[in-house]
């Protein structure tokens, strides 16, 4: 098993009508052994911007701390929140700085830009940005996630339908992966509110 599969993870983000959803599994493992079932992979940068990190858990935590630091600095200097596109470029630059000793994670960034237009993108571990209009996936269950999202996704879904879709896609994909699952964590973000929900999944 490669180093990216050491801890196990699954992260997915989807675009809806003026809203987005980002979801992850909750397992933290050491290869096949499950250590925790409440590991936080998705973090808020500001009220309209979330980042989900898959891959090596220690780098997930460290990278998140670095990014929060950079965003807080930005807030102090610019007196406003970062736009999602700008944040994606920041993450890409930070990852490429470590080109020859990379952070072993793959981020998924989801945010609401200007005019409440949802923005999602994913990156590999050295910062190659991949923008998408519909959904992005990352983690050990990424192949299953691609299949599930492709089958279940429809454009312009409202918040509730988007939540159902992303939850089903996540749960059915992690049920085919030994290293991720044990519950799910979903954030659905609209211009007015953030709804955080925890999914009951198979605990095997």
């Amino acid at each position, binding site marked *: 098993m490669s180093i990216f599969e050491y801890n196990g993870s699954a992260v997915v983000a989807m675009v809806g009508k003026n809203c987005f959803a980002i979801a992850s599994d909750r397992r933290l493992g050491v290869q096949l052994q499950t250590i925790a079932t409440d590991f936080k992979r998705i973090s808020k940068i500001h009220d309209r911007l979330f980042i989900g990190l898959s891959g090596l858990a220690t780098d997930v935590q460290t990278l998140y701390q670095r990014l929060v630091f950079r965003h807080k600095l930005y807030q102090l200097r610019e007196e406003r929140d970062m736009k999602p596109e700008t944040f994606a470029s920041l993450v890409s630059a930070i990852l490429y700085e470590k080109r020859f000793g990379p952070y072993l994670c793959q981020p998924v960034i989801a945010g609401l830009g200007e005019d409440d237009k949802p923005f999602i993108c994913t990156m590999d571990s050295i910062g190659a940005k991949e923008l998408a209009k519909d959904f992005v996936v990352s983690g050990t269950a990424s192949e299953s996630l691609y299949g599930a999202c492709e089958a279940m996704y429809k454009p312009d879904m409202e918040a509730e339908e988007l939540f159902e879709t992303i939850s089903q896609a996540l749960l059915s994909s992690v049920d085919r*992966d030994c290293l991720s699952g044990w519950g799910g964590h979903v954030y659905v973000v609209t211009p007015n509110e953030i709804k955080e929900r925890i999914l009951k*999944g198979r605990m095997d």
Partner: protein
Amino acid sequence: MKLDTSGFETSMPTIGFGSSNDMLDGFSTVPSFDLPRTTDFDGFQKEAVQMVKPAKGTTTLAFIFKEGVMVAADSRASMGGYISSQSVKKIIEINPYMLGTMAGGAADCQFWHRNLGIKCRLHELANKRRISVSGASKLLANMLYSYRGMGLSVGTMIAGWDETGPGLYYVDNEGGRLKGDRFSVGSGSPYAYGVLDSGYKFDMSVEEASELARRSIYHATFRDGASGGVASVYHVGSNGWTKLSGDDVGELHYHYYPVPPAIAEQVMEEAAAE
């Protein structure tokens, strides 16, 4: 961290060392890096990694108690990280009074158990009496020993009831054969042993023993990534084996650890954080 920067070496190897060249400034001094002192740079770690690689992704267990032998297993088949099936039959019915468990290579276990069933039947016909569990496990162990080193992967338990009472043997692809009262085989076995050993009593009823077996498999599927699916429990008594239960482990979790329902607004998928 020293890295392989040989990709930076240009295809013009005769650029003089120390001669300044605008293009190569900054690249002309190729940083050195520590190399392991071995002839096989790409593969020398493989053996070490393979040694600690988790083998036999499964959980099976069997134990002898007052009323016979209890045999239980999960039903997940995994290929590395991918779950290839959640509904594999890991308890193989050799004949009406003997069961074998499957751990390791599925094809190996299925084939050799069927082969063992054939040999047992031939023994019955030749000797006009059923083969003992000891004899059956010895047949299997000897067969596997003759294929030692050829890459078979079999970690099986032969459980049965013969004239001497309940019998349980562990047989593996190295040719090892152990007689015992309690065994668990597979990557989830440490977790199963923890629950099994702390709850085991010889004087259990069939219900208590089956619940203990089921719970041990459940706990193993919770902690071990390579075990899951359905927990099957079989009982081998004086009249042969019977299947007692086959519970989906996903539902068992909420049976043992129910989630208190959240109050008020609740969408179908929602559950209170555990």
